[in-house]
């Protein structure tokens, strides 16, 4: 193996992000998910004859905001172009996009991988419209088109080929995602397709000056799949080169189930998009005032928040990192902590139980629905020993799923902790009397037997007993 050459992987990404506007980019139709097919449509987004596009200004606002947050130059006079290709999901058979004068250029994003910093260049960000969706109906043996997504605004963020590993790629994507989520420009969900990454990848011998021939991989919808795809495609290309073969420049589809990529049919790939300036839309002139206005509305981003949490709340770097991954979590944390005055406990609920429940419900942090007031009330209930920790966990699940008011819930369900030593002792005496075998075991040195008796006591008290007091009283009675 001594003759084996050393290769490096060169990766650039094209990331599509669906913007969080209420209406589509060129018409007034709703961008909401889940409508019946073709109910969020009009003459414009279905390509009817005589219809004309009218730009949704909020799309420009979001694009500028993302551009500023990724250190881009904003193109002061940007234009739309038509990208022509025939496909039934594309009602006009051209997509309105930007080629010649994209709205943002020459930016960069700083990432940290294994403790070292790196800057990934942004070549450009452009605005465009999404396509509809083709659904094959096996019963009719026909393809149907749903234009509800047609005209949903997208930005495409094109990086420079600056990444060298899947770790860097994922760090870059995570950075983009949190930045864009913090801006409120998109929810950036890979699984649902509101964030999509195409991976441009080539390999070359370490030290080579020229880039190798690259392939583009589409259809990757999770970070895990992206890592797999990078590993798989890197290996495929190295094997080709090792065999003395050439890498062909092509678009490939990554199949994560098969763990391999496949060339896309070349017919669809006959790429001459015949771009030309969109004559139906005048150029967008972006003034310094416009840019300043958007800059002034910039939120506190993750890095700043994280540093502040460490300083202000004494959280560890790890905790602050997790809490600030999602703007929604961070905002819930800040509000709840301010109300209850116990940032550490608030943080624990958000990091442990919340993360576990999000996973159980396969939800994104951005999807949490409970109010910080209710979380704060729960923290207060535990701080004041009004409920015990097992009851608190139960109540939190209710807050998470239904955003219940914990004070009311505890009251209505009679979940208050029993701290009355006399009442507890009476119950425990009964339990001890009813379980002579366990008592004998304990006295014979099987100290574990106390666990059973604690359990019986909690059961008898319907879980509301103060567990510390139960332990204390039980031990005293057994030692008697």
């Amino acid at each position, binding site marked *: 193996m001594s003759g084996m050459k050393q290769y490096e992987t060169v990766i650039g990404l094209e990331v599509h992000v669906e913007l969080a506007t209420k209406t589509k980019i060129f018409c007034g139709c709703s961008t909401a998910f889940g409508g019946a097919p073709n109910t969020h449509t009009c003459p414009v987004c279905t390509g009817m004859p005589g219809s004309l596009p009218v730009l949704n200004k909020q799309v420009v606002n979001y694009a500028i905001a993302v551009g500023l947050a990724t250190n881009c130059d904003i193109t002061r006079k940007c234009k739309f172009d038509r990208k022509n290709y025939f496909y039934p999901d594309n009602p006009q058979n051209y997509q309105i996009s930007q080629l010649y004068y994209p709205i943002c250029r020459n930016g960069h994003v700083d990432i940290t991988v294994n403790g070292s910093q790196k800057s990934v260049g942004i070549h450009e960000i452009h605005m465009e419209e999404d396509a509809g969706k083709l659904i094959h109906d096996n019963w009719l043996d026909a393809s149907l088109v749903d234009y509800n997504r047609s005209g949903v605004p997208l930005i495409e963020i094109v990086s420079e080929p600056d990444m060298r590993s899947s770790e860097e790629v994922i760090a870059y994507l995570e950075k983009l995602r949190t930045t864009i989520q913090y801006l409120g420009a998109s929810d950036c969900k890979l699984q649902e397709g509101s964030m999509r990454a195409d991976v441009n990848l080539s390999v070359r011998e370490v030290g080579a000056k020229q880039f190798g021939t690259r392939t583009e991989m589409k259809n990757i919808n999770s970070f895990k799949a992206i890592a797999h795809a990078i590993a798989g495609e890197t290996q495929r290309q190295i094997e080709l080169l090792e065999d003395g073969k050439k890498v062909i420049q092509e678009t490939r589809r990554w199949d994560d189930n098969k763990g391999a990529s496949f060339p896309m049919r070349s017919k669809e790939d006959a790429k*001459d998009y015949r771009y030309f300036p969109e*004559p*139906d839309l005048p150029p967008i002139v972006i003034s310094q005032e416009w840019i300043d206005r958007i800059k002034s509305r910039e939120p506190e981003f993750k890095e700043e928040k994280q540093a502040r949490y460490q300083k202000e709340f004494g959280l560890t770097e790890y905790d602050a990192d997790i809490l600030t991954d999602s703007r929604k979590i961070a905002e819930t944390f800040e509000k709840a902590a301010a109300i209850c005055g116990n940032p550490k406990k608030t943080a624990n609920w958000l990091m442990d139980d919340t993360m576990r429940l999000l996973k159980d419900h396969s939800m994104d942090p951005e999807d949490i629905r409970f109010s910080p007031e209710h979380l704060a009330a729960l923290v207060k209930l535990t701080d004041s020993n009004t409920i015990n920790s097992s009851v608190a966990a139960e109540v939190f699940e209710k807050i998470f799923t239904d955003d219940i008011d914990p004070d009311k819930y505890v009251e209505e369900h009679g979940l208050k902790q029993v701290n009355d030593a006399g009442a507890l002792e009476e119950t425990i005496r009964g339990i001890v009397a009813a379980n002579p075998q366990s008592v004998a075991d304990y006295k014979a040195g099987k100290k574990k037997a106390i666990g059973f008796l604690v359990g019986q006591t909690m059961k008898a008290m319907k879980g509301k007993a103060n567990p510390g007091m139960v332990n204390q009283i039980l031990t005293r009675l057994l030692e008697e």
Partner: protein
Amino acid sequence: MSLMNLTAVELGRKIRAKEVSVQEAAQASLESIDAKEDRLHSFITRIDRKKVLARADEVQKKIDAGELTGPLAGVPVAIKDNMNTKGVLTSAASHILDNFVPRFSATAVERLEQAGAVVVGKTNMDEFAMGSTTETSYFGPTANPFDTARVPGGSSGGSAAAVSGAEVPYALGSDTGGSIRQPCAYCGATGIKPTYGTVSRYGLIAYGSSLDQIGPIAKDVSDCAAILETIAAPDEKDSTSVARDSYAFTKSLTQGVKGLKIGIPRDYFGDGLDPEVRQKVLAAADVLKSEGAIVEEFDLSLVQYAIPAYYLIACAEASSNLERFDGVKYGYRTKDYEELHQMYKKTRSEGFGPEVRRRIMLGSFVLSSGYYDAYYLKALRTKALIKAAFDKAFARYDVILGPVAPTTAPKMNSSLSDPLKMYLSDVYTVSVNLCCLPGLSLPCGLASDGMPVGLQLIGDCFREDNLFRAAYAYEQARGPIMSPFAREEAEK
């Protein structure tokens, strides 16, 4: 004398004065159409008589209630078939849309209807407005009311013939490279292509989006001003429409031409211009001079580049605009196909006529990679140079005066066999579209063969007022021009 011999403004006045009912006006139009369509074929779709009369009734009530007071209230109108009319077939004279019924009306049509217009039908045209003779229509040609063996011009040939033949008092046309002005010249009608952005393009089936404008085709200049006042407005549905400082076109009609500076580009009077057309147009300039205008000759330059620049840009935009006609969502779909690509290919090969296919191919070619810079980009640069030449001219002149077309209307079946020659005949009209300028066309007499000759007046952007001043003054001196069909209507 029939009601159809009146101008739109005259008829509107009689309707408001209760001398004529809206029903009578509509009846007169329907009867005239019935009597002449066999010979003219101006229309693709004639709206059901009952529906027209019901609409007339509705308008009459609104006039009686004082809700409609404008000059066009109750006046019948015909609409070129590339403008959407809600619930009425809108085919753009193409097989590929011969079953297409839009669910919304074009803004220009809507504005006319709000002003009380009674739409009687959709007029014939070159398929997707591509042509100069109306012979490329899937529905067959339209005849010229001055000589039915000749073409009416195009692409708004149906609208021009319907007006010239006294089937309707006025019509809407669209003009991408002369499609209002040239048929007006051939049919002895009057029309104006306004400054780009003056009339909303929403609901107009696009040919060349950066060039297309809707405009009136009428019997005289006053009608054009009144119609343009009605249809011109900024439209939030068309991002290229503009809010003008002034829409008071009628006001400028009677301002006279005293001191108006008129330039005659020598370049428009060179080889290829029929001597009789030349003589009539120059005679019209003399009339304006005698009315007090300052008339002088000048060199415009770059005229020979207008045709290639225009056809490259128009075809490039058209190739993209017409991509939506694919058999997927509406319109014609081929009967027999195996898979998607074959469906596209067969649908479009069968659905589009030869001239449309030619322009789509030309446009696709000039936009394809490797040719974009050499053709399309060069055409854009040429356009900028031509615009600069006009800017220079308008620094000195208020109006540029010249012919509309090199000849009078050609015979049927003489043009399509040589498309290049047909394209070249647009030499005097296309620059107006390339430079977003307003251009007005009105008859300036009959040639010895009895065919009308067109006079073109070109103004600077947003200076339609100068065109209306000059055209109205000339028209007063000229007197009326009637086609044999209009005379037939008058003698009824």
